[in-house]
Every structure is written in structure tokens, then in C-alpha cells.
């Protein structure tokens, strides 16, 4: 077994930046257990802050740049995520979770403004403009979904006037990320998905992945005083199921293999030739880039900087003995690093490029790094009035205690009781919560915002519970699919110690929660109108008749040629006609 050094090295490699207009891109492929494949795409470009202010855009996308200037946003982080990262099988997240977002859409930004009101109005301008740019419902991030985190986020860029910067954070856990978000994302890239690693990104495979995150990070970077640049980093991280991804697009339904292609367990007795006990495959399955991504890689994006080995844009992290065939008509270059577990390729310009990994019986495997924390969160309780939330956070390290910030941003109709907050550590006594920041919700104005600083000792787990009430909404406040439930945003966990390796920090997020609220019958208003009308009409009819009718004795009722007498007369005449004279 080999140790897992490469990923950390790789992070350090891409972190070096420069304050001039340039462009880098990198794709890291890493097979994960259970025939999963992690693909991390990173695209980074710079624009000198002078050119940015004058709106001369070269690699930085003009549409995004104008939005940032209009909204006075100095640093921006936007995430579109789908699926769940399976930490117990896949280990630590790529980029230590710093490029991950909660399910749906998550946005946080440092906005420059004099007052809080001004900052909020600029934040609204930002969300509205981004909503148009990315075809997402970001404009629904209003005051009820916006919080101002105190401890959970730190700026990644170099800012001069921190006192004028306001951090705002908003989430849309209900948003379904899809192809219409990917297309504008690709348009922001200088090579636009026409060349370079971005040509592998297609909506079919990306949104079919077990887990995926699209991220956009904009920050100012200063080498020294006055030599500043605005850096945009776009990333796509996805975990593909290899078997699923290899299915051809025109025939996506899984069908059983013909029996001749299945290797059967010969040690078992069979009663007929068409039965089979399939052997579990131990070998790493075969795959190629073309198969897995459904498109071919159209050579390198020629804008990438050639220095510092940055031109080796496709990297694959496998065992040194794993066989890899390179299929291309052009010239390419391979370099190996990190005790040969990381192989990087310099792509040819204008020629298709493919990596083919044949099926191979492996004797060794790569060690996956364990994440610093495992987190899970769920809603407990029953009924439509109240419930409770339980978050279980486990520290797998046997030596180090872990200190972190736990951030909850709850919708206003989920009303937590802070006095019911219990933080219990399974193996030790004492309160693990060191610091609490709580801003209660105001109905229809803002949601609750809870931040906790917690320490978990080595090899123990924390269980955090609190109770909440479910509010009853107004008739018009329910969404069209009210019976589906309401999404509560994922909790964000930021690690404080052990110290993160870089400014991006180490983050983990829980999954989002589905909250069932009492849902009314939506034909209710019409029913109410009808019922009230009936009651009023009944009362009116009675009173009116009492006032207007003349009351007489039963034998005094005037004989009237009613319907019955008319019918009787007709019947008599008919009978006499039938009988004849």
C-alpha cells in the first residue's frame, strides 16, 4: 500500500499565482473505490486590477466582471451542487471541501458598502444579476434566506479596506442544478468548451454523476503593494460511477450481459447451461476518457501558460504499475511525480487526446486520506407541530482534538428553541461548545442564524440536538408542490484546528433537510365562501319567509292547481283515450 501524498502536492502546485493576465487549467482524475472516478476540473485566470477597473476584459469574463463592479463585490463564491459526497467510502473531499457547496445553490460574497442597508441592496443587485447570468433562481435569495456569518467564512483574497466589506451568505437548497447552469458556466471560460479539458464537460454526464459541484471563486490577489490582480477560479468536481458512465448515450438502459460474456463460478454445480453464478470481479475495470465523458478531448487550450510545468494539464492519480495507453495523433508529453503515483500529460494542440486504461488485476491500492470530520444531520420527531434536529459529528483522528465552527441557517418557519440545544460527547463529560452566536428569526423577515464553536476530543463523536416548532404559513406562501416539503439548508462546518494548509480553509457540509409543514387543502377559500354563503342564505330565507308568509289553518289552504293535479288530470284523459268510448 502506498501513502497518499500526491493530492496535497497537487494542491500546492496549482496554488501559485501571478498578478498578470494569464490562464491555467488542470484536470485531475482519481479512481475511487467501488468503480467510482473523481474528476476535478480547475480553470483559473487573472486580470490585472487596472484593466478590470477600466473594463478591459481579456480572460476574465465581461458579463461577470460588470456584475461584480455594479454590485461593488470584491470577493465572490458561488456553488452549484448536486448529490452527496460519500465520505466513508471516498475519503477526504477534493480541495479539503473548500470548493464544495451545499446541495442546491450557495452564494457568499464580500460586498463593499458604507452601511448595512447599502450592502444589502447591493447584495440584492448581485443576486438578481447572477440569476440572469446563470439561469438559476438566485433572485429568490431575499432577506429571509440571507445571513451574515460571523465566524464561518474568512476572505481568501487580499483586501485593503476590510472595515467597509460586508459578508453576506445565501442558500437555495431547493434549487435543482442542471444543464442550463452549465452552459453559462462554460461560456465564461476563454476556451469555451471548444478546446482543452473543458471540452469534456457535457451536461449528460455531469448531471448524471453521483456527486458534483460547480464552483466560481473571484478574489483579489496582491503580490506586493499595488501589484494586484482579480483572479477567477472556476471548478467542476464530480464523482462518476464508471459502469453507469460507460453506458452509451443512445442506449442508456442497463441490460443483462449475454451469458457468454459473464465469467461464471465453475466450482458450483449447475443444473442447466443457461444458469450462472457470476464471479465477483477483482480487477480494476477498463475505461477511457471518451467512454466516461461521452465526448473526446479536443487537444489543449493553447492559452495556458507554458512555465513551471503548468502546461501538463491532464493528471491521473493511479498506482505506478497501472497501465495507461495514450491515444493521440499529435505530440504529447508525460511526466511522473509524487513517487510516480501522479502522471501528468501535456496535451497536443488541435488533436484529439484520449487515455485508455485497460482492465488490470491490481495488487496494491492507493490510500485515501481520511476526512478530519464525518458529519450527518437529520430531523427527528413526528407530527406537524414540532420536531427536533440531530447532528452527529465524529472525529476519526485518534490523536488530535478538532475545533470547528458549526453554522446553521434555518428558514423562518422552522423556529428552533435555543434552550433545548444539547451538545453531548459520547466519551467525555463537559460542554464542548465554546462560543455561541445566535440571531433569532423574525417572521417573514429573516431566518435564524446559529453559529457554534465546538471542540471534539480525539476519537469521539458529538451529538448536537435542538427542538423546533413548525410555523403555519399563509395560504399564498406555499410553493406549488407544497406537499413535497420544504428544504432546510445544509449546515456548514469550518475547521479551525488542526490549522488548514492554506487560506481556502477546510470545510465540510451536511446534506440538506426536508421539512414537512402542515399543508392546507388549497380549495379551502372557495369552500369557506360556499359554506358561509349557505349559512347566510338559510338564515335569510327563514327570516324572510316568517315575515312575508300568511299563516292559515291546515284546512284553510286554498286549493291550487298544483303540478300533481295537472298530472292527474292528464293521466285520466290518457286512460279514457286508451280505453276507448
Amino acid at each position, binding site marked *: 500500500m502506498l501513502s497518499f501524498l500526491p493530492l496535497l502536492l497537487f494542491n500546492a502546485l496549482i496554488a501559485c499565482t501571478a498578478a498578470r493576465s494569464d490562464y491555467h487549467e488542470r484536470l485531475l482524475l482519481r479512481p475511487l473505490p467501488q468503480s467510482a472516478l473523481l474528476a476535478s476540473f480547475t480553470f483559473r485566470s487573472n486580470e490585472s486590477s487596472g484593466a478590470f477597473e477600466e473594463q*478591459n476584459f481579456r480572460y476574465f469574463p465581461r458579463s461577470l466582471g460588470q456584475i461584480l463592479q455594479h454590485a461593488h463585490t470584491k470577493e465572490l463564491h458561488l456553488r452549484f451542487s448536486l448529490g452527496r459526497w460519500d465520505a466513508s467510502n471516498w475519503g477526504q473531499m477534493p480541495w479539503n471541501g473548500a470548493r464544495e457547496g451545499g446541495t442546491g445553490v450557495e452564494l457568499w460574497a464580500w460586498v463593499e458598502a458604507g452601511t448595512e442597508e447599502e450592502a444589502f441592496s447591493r447584495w440584492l443587485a448581485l443576486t438578481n444579476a447572477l440569476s440572469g*447570468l446563470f439561469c438559476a433562481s438566485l433572485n429568490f435569495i431575499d432577506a429571509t434566506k440571507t445571513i451574515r456569518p460571523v465566524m464561518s467564512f474568512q476572505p481568501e483574497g487580499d483586501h485593503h479596506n476590510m472595515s467597509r466589506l460586508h459578508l453576506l451568505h445565501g442558500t437555495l437548497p431547493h434549487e435543482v442544478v442542471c444543464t442550463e447552469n452549465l452552459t453559462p458556466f462554460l461560456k465564461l471560460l476563454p476556451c469555451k468548451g471548444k478546446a482543452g479539458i473543458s471540452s469534456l464537460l457535457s451536461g449528460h454526464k455531469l448531471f448524471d454523476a453521483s456527486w458534483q459541484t460547480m464552483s466560481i471563486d473571484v478574489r483579489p490577489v496582491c503580490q506586493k503593494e499595488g501589484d494586484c490582480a482579480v483572479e477567477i477560479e472556476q471548478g467542476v468536481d464530480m464523482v462518476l460511477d464508471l459502469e453507469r458512465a460507460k453506458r452509451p448515450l443512445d442506449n442508456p438502459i442497463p441490460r443483462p450481459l449475454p451469458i457468454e460474456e459473464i465469467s461464471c463460478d465453475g466450482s458450483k454445480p449447475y443444473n442447466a447451461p443457461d444458469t450462472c453464478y457470476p464471479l465477483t470481479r477483482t480487477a480494476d475495470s477498463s475505461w477511457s476518457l471518451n467512454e466516461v465523458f461521452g465526448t473526446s478531448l479536443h487537444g489543449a487550450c493553447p492559452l495556458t501558460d507554458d512555465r513551471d510545468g503548468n502546461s501538463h494539464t491532464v493528471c491521473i492519480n493511479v498506482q505506478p504499475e497501472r497501465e495507461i495507453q495514450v491515444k493521440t495523433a499529435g505530440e504529447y508529453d508525460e511526466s511522473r511525480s509524487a513517487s510516480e503515483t501522479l502522471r501528468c500529460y501535456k496535451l497536443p494542440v488541435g488533436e484529439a487526446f484520449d487515455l485508455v486504461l485497460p482492465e488490470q488485476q491490481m495488487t496494491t491500492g492507493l490510500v485515501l486520506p481520511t476526512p478530519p470530520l464525518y458529519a450527518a444531520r437529520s430531523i427527528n420527531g413526528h407530527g406537524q407541530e414540532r420536531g427536533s434536529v440531530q447532528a452527529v459529528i465524529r472525529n476519526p483522528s485518534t490523536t488530535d482534538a478538532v475545533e470547528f465552527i458549526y453554522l446553521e441557517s434555518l428558514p423562518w418557519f422552522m423556529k428552533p428553541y435555543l434552550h433545548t440545544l444539547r451538545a453531548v460527547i459520547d466519551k467525555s463529560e463537559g460542554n464542548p461548545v465554546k462560543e455561541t452566536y445566535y440571531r433569532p428569526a423574525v417572521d417573514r423577515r429573516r431566518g435564524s442564524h446559529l453559529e457554534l464553536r465546538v471542540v471534539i476530543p480525539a476519537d469521539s463523536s458529538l451529538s448536537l440536538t435542538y427542538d423546533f416548532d413548525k410555523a403555519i404559513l399563509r395560504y399564498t406562501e406555499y410553493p406549488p408542490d407544497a406537499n413535497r416539503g420544504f428544504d432546510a439548508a445544509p449546515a456548514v462546518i469550518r475547521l479551525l484546528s488542526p490549522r488548514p494548509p492554506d487560506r481556502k480553509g477546510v470545510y465540510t457540509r451536511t446534506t440538506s433537510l426536508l421539512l414537512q409543514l402542515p399543508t392546507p387543502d388549497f380549495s379551502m377559500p372557495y369552500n369557506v365562501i360556499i359554506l358561509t354563503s349557505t349559512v347566510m342564505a338559510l338564515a335569510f*330565507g327563514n327570516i324572510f319567509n316568517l315575515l312575508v308568509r300568511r299563516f*292559515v289553518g291546515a284546512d284553510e*289552504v286554498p286549493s291550487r292547481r298544483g303540478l300533481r293535479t295537472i298530472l292527474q288530470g292528464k293521466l285520466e284523459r290518457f286512460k279514457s283515450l286508451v280505453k276507448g268510448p
Partner: protein
Amino acid sequence: MGSSKVNPPPETKESVWLRRSVILSFWLVAVLLGLPVWWKTTAIYRAELPLQTMTDWADGKVCKPVFPLRIAVEVPIPPSEAQHLIRTTQHALDDLNEFSAHHLRLMLADSPWVANTSQQIVSDGTTVDARHEEDIALLIRLIQVGTGNTPRSMLRAYSPTLDIYYAANQLPSPSSTGSPLATFMAQELHKLFDEEQALLAYLLSTKSKIPTAKVKSFSPETAAELERQSTIAFKYAPTYHLTFSLFTPTFIPSDWRIESALKQYISPFLDSFASISNFTIDTQVQLYSAYSPSIQKPVYDEDQKAWLLRKEDLSGFINAAEWPLSPSIGAGPTVNFVLYVPDQAETPLLVQGSGANSWLIPQWGGVVILNPSGTDKFGPVLTKQDLAPAMHTFSDQLMSLLGLPRAPASLPLRLSTLVRSRAASLLFSASSTLGALARLYNALPSIPIPDKVAKSVDLTTAHLQHACDNLRGGRFRTALEHARIAEAEAEKAFFERSMVGQVYFPDEHKVAVYLPLLGPIAVPLVMAALKELQSIIRALKARKNA
């Protein structure tokens, strides 16, 4: 069957009267109280609009725009003679003018001659200080020369000044009513403002409903040309956003020296425009951006040694689906300038027929295809020299897109022409929007009209009145400003969002919702009334027979 029938005792007068008054009072409550309350609570709020005034504005009954241009004349001769010269010229000028709304008025400027003799002149309103008055359209400087061809004129390119050189004997004698100089001046002025008159007359006759009896007639070619110019130009705005984009289907060139090129070729023009509108500039480089795939591929032509784009494909050239040409954020229209560097294999790329490499897209921007000269190739960076031809084309296109007239040669004169024509067209468009709103108000009685709309309408008419007054007074800049506000307010009123909401909630719906209440109540009321009416009629008949 043998039950004996007993008639009820006859009703007393009181009980009949009581029953009838009960029914009547129920009916009165329903009709006098119920119906008005229902009507009131379900009515749509419609603010009062001054419909008559609005229609009057649209029909041009309120304001007939006139354009009195003041022209200062600087003469190095004594004031009495100067006044005589001006009078004669004014006569000649008035005889030439066919368009009464556009009127040139000559005025005597404080001439340096007066200053030199330190003679006190009492200002009687006919003399002006030409150097300080910004509402002076043109300054004529008469310069006496001894040699050369006289009279001759010279228009300065960067100031609104016309120099006229004359010989001493060409001045009118005090007794005569005409002189070669006066006729020459009148003709020069007429020539100078001929195009502007045509433009304004065209605006007046096509864009407004003002009954213009005496409108300058113009040839169909002039009309077509004016029509073309007015469709190309953007609406007037106080701020325009200019976007310069480099598109190329490959990755070369990937950079351009746009800052210095803009500074040299575009900024001077924008500076001279600054008094009317502001501009923001942004630039972008977009690689791997081919033209729209829906048009036919260009064909190689052996004679011209060039790839030719079909003329009818030019409108589809812009790849709207992939090129990020979203409008800039902020008020004001975005003017797009697209510089397209074709693929090496498709160079040079030209337009079929004309062999041109650039074209205008009306009210959107301009496109230039940049081919390398000769057999050269572009490097990864486009230099300022490479960009020069494209930038010249862009600045020409920008002039057309802003609606700047082609003549006369003096830029300040063209700008002031632009101010007048823009003020007039804004005035007309705001007026016609008011008219449309008035028609809408009458045509759709079910839409709500909020107070905001009434307020905007009031603002519009007030500013229109100001604009009209300022036009009459010759203060064209102020008129333009008022006309712009009027136009913006009129648009705001017309496109008020809350006016659309209830068009789809008709009266039938309201009746349907309240029918469960109205039905059961109405039936006994109606039945009782009918029955009572029947008995009254029967009683009347009985009395007649008796």
C-alpha cells in the same frame, strides 16, 4: 275525499300593507345598500387621467415646435451700418426660407471694432455677446480683405464659426436694399442649414400629427435617406455604453492593444460629444467564437482572391446564442462593436458584391471583419496599427448610430443640429405615447390605473410644456433635457406593470364566486315580489270588473 273546504278569513288591510312594506324594504336594502357596496368593493381603482390634454398633445394641438436659431454677426464696421447689413441679409434670408418652423435670426455681436473705439453702446436687445452666449447657433465673422476672390467663406471644423471675407465695396450702401455681400451671406446660411431643415421637416411630417400646411417639400431620395438614418440611429439617451469585442474562431489573436487604440481613435470624438451624452467603454476578447452556424459558409472567389459572405447572410452573422454580447448593466443602451478576425483558412473574408468588410446593424452596433493586409498573418497580439482601419470604421459607425448628420463640415454645428432633431423627436414620441395611453384607458375599462400613472402623466405634460417653451425660446439643450424626462416618464406610465395584472380577472369570475350567496337570497326576494305583484294586479282587475 269528503273533507270540507273552508276558505281562510279575508286578510285585513293592515296585514297586507305590512307584508308589502316588508318586501319593499328588503328590496330597498338590497338595491340601495347591497348593490352599491358590492359594486364599490369589487371595483377596480382607476385614477383620473387628463385624457383630453393627452389626446391634444398626441394630435399636436398644444405645441407646434419652432426652431428659432440665433446667429451672431461680428462686423468690423460702425453699428448703424452693421444694422443695415443685417437687415438686408435677414430680408434675403427670409425670402429663401421655405420652412417657417425653422427660422434663422441674425443678431449683431459685440464686435471688436466697438471695443476698440471704446464707444458705449446701449444694449437694446439686438446685440449679443457671441462668445459667452451658448444658445447662439453660429457666429459669422466678417473679415475685410483687400485681395483674393471675394466674397468667400470658410467654415471652421471645430468651432461654430463661419468666416466670411469680403471687399469694402461689397457692403450695402445705406440707400440700397441689396448688396452682393448680403445675398452671399444669405445663400451661405441657407446652404449650411439646408440639411437640418430637411431633417426637421421630415420629423415633423412623419413622426407627429401636427397639421403642417407649410412644410418644406423634399425629393423621395432625400426622404429615403432621412428614413434610413432615423432607423439606424439609437434613441437619445444621456448615457451610452460602448462595448468593443474581439471575436475569432481560433485562438489567434488572443490579445489586442485596445486601450491605446481607443485613446487615439475613439476618445477625441467622445470628448466632443460629452456635452450631450456620457459614454462608458468596456472591451472583451472572445476566442473560439465563430460566426453563426446557421448562415451559408463563405465561398472562395478566384477574381477577388477572397472568401465572400452572401449579403443576405449579414443579418445572421452575429452568433447570438454563443457570443456573450449581453447589454451592459445600468441605464442607457449598449452599442456593440464587433471586430471579427476570420480563420486563417478563410482570409480574406469580404462581403459579396460590395467587397466591403464592415456593416452596420441598426440600433445595435457595427461589425468589422479584420483581414490581415497582403499575405501576412496576425500575431497573437493585435497592435494599434493593426487596429487602426477598424477603429476608423467604428468611429464612423458610431456617428451614424448616434444619429449625427453628415453635413455640414463643422462638428459643433452638427452636434447642435443633433440636439434640435433629438429634442423634436423625443417631444413627438412622448406625445404619441401619451395619446396611446389615453386610447388604452378608453379601450380597456377593466384594467386598473394606479395613481403612479396619473402622476407620471402629469410630469410628462409639464416637461413637454417646458420643452416646447424652451424650443420656442431657442434654448435647445434645456429643451432636450426636458423632452428626455418627458419621454422617460411617458414610457414609465405606459409600461406600468400593475396595469396588466387584472386584465385576466373578468367580472364573470366575481359573479361566479358570489353566486352561492346571491342565488339563494335572490330567489325568495324575486318570488315574493312577483307573487305580490300578481295579487295587486288581480285586485285591480277585480275592482275594474266590479
